[in-house]
């Protein structure tokens, strides 16, 4: 369908209620997508309305430039946010992410949007205090637009095609910006080969953030041990299916660790080595329980030694480290679904 269907409402119709009645919302009211608003969203994009950016599973329906813009309007985006959402659509439909599986899984993971580069400041995005929380229009509506696209175009309908047992609040909106200015290390997109001045979006399918409170430690070992211990808890997909995890570290923790001479890679190597659980405990849960040979572990992991320490991920590079948040000494751990994050430049 090249161009979106136009719905003509009676003069007595409430357009917000009309969107509810058509099943177009996430449960919150949406901004009615009128011709004028959609045209304004598209004005600076310079793209034909019927260009297909991706097909969104599980419906595998075409996400055209126009359809994406319609959902951006409904989410409350300003036109300047549109390129970020376009990039997010490109990233989350990378086959490596297995969006089809994630959209339909009983697991609660959902795509998180991480924004890097100069566009963060240009859009006034929040990378500081309460970064996962409410209060910033760009963070909130970019994340919400992505979720509306997943349900409206992808048709991941809760309880029907989206079979999440529980879901999580990030299914309304889930978008942060990295606090590059207060990070002692290269930001995520630079780690992945892009220039610092290139804006980028990373998509990672993950659970909700889990807080790691450490206000006492003043050295890298103690701090990283706390993080590793929080990561290594039973019930994570990773202990069975492996995959990727993300640590969103507050600037204060990052500063303490970097002051001890640790690079990002040092942190990842430490967490990879220490965030493990013994086989005798891992076999209590997961998909296969005591049939441990069916898990997707590296070959070097013993399937018979009860004391074998099973790694959370296959290699240090599968621990993604992002610096974000404001003052305070709290870091967050975001368990993944089982697939890697994907970074794309914002065009």
């Amino acid at each position, binding site marked *: 369908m090249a161009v979106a*269907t136009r719905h*003509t409402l009676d003069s007595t119709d409430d357009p917000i209620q009309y969107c509810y009645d058509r099943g177009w919302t996430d449960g919150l009211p949406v901004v009615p997508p009128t011709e004028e608003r959609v045209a304004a969203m598209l004005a600076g994009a310079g793209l034909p309305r019927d260009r297909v950016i991706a097909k969104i599973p599980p419906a595998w*329906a075409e996400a055209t430039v126009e359809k994406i813009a319609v959902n951006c309007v409904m989410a409350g985006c300003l036109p300047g946010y549109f390129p970020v959402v376009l990039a997010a659509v490109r990233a989350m439909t990378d086959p490596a992410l297995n969006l089809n599986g994630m959209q339909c899984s009983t697991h609660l993971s959902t795509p998180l949007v991480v924004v890097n580069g100069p566009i963060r400041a240009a859009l006034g995005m929040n990378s500081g205090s309460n970064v996962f929380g409410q209060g910033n229009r760009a963070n909130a509506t970019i994340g919400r637009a992505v979720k509306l696209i997943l349900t*409206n175009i992808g048709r991941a309908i809760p309880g029907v095609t989206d079979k999440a047992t529980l879901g999580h609040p990030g299914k309304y909106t889930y978008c942060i910006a990295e606090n590059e200015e207060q990070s002692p290390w290269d930001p995520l997109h630079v780690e992945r080969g892009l220039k610092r001045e290139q804006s980028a979006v990373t998509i990672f399918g993950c659970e909700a953030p889990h807080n790691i409170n450490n206000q006492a430690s003043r050295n890298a070992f103690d701090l990283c041990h706390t993080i590793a211990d929080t990561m290594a808890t039973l019930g994570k997909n990773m202990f069975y299916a492996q995959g990727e995890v993300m640590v969103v570290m507050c600037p204060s923790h990052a500063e303490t660790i970097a002051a001890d001479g640790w690079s990002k890679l040092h942190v990842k190597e430490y967490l990879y080595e220490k965030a493990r659980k013994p086989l005798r405990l891992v076999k209590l849960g997961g998909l296969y329980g005591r049939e441990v040979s069916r898990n997707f572990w590296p070959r070097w992991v013993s399937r018979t030694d009860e004391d074998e320490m099973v790694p959370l991920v296959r290699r240090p590079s599968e621990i993604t480290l992002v610096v974000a948040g404001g003052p305070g000494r709290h870091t967050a751990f975001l368990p993944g679904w089982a697939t890697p994050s994907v970074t794309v430049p914002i065009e």
Partner: protein
Amino acid sequence: MSIILLDPAAEGVPDFLPTADRLKELAGKRIGLLDNIKHNAEYLLASVGARFEELGCEVKAVRKKTYTKIAEPHILAALEDCDAVVTAIGD
């Protein structure tokens, strides 16, 4: 004054795929069993397969590599000559 809204939802794809026609009789039919490798799927499908064999069916079992992804083309190709396919298992 009327208001025009642009449709934000999927278009050009069916709401739901139609249900396949049901077999009128089972004797002599070839039944595919698609194991998605979830826990207990193989046991359930083994029981289902045994029952089909009792009813005079030929059973053909195949197994996906991973439960989260759509079956690979060679798996689907292996099921093309089946009269019906049973897949398992949801959580």
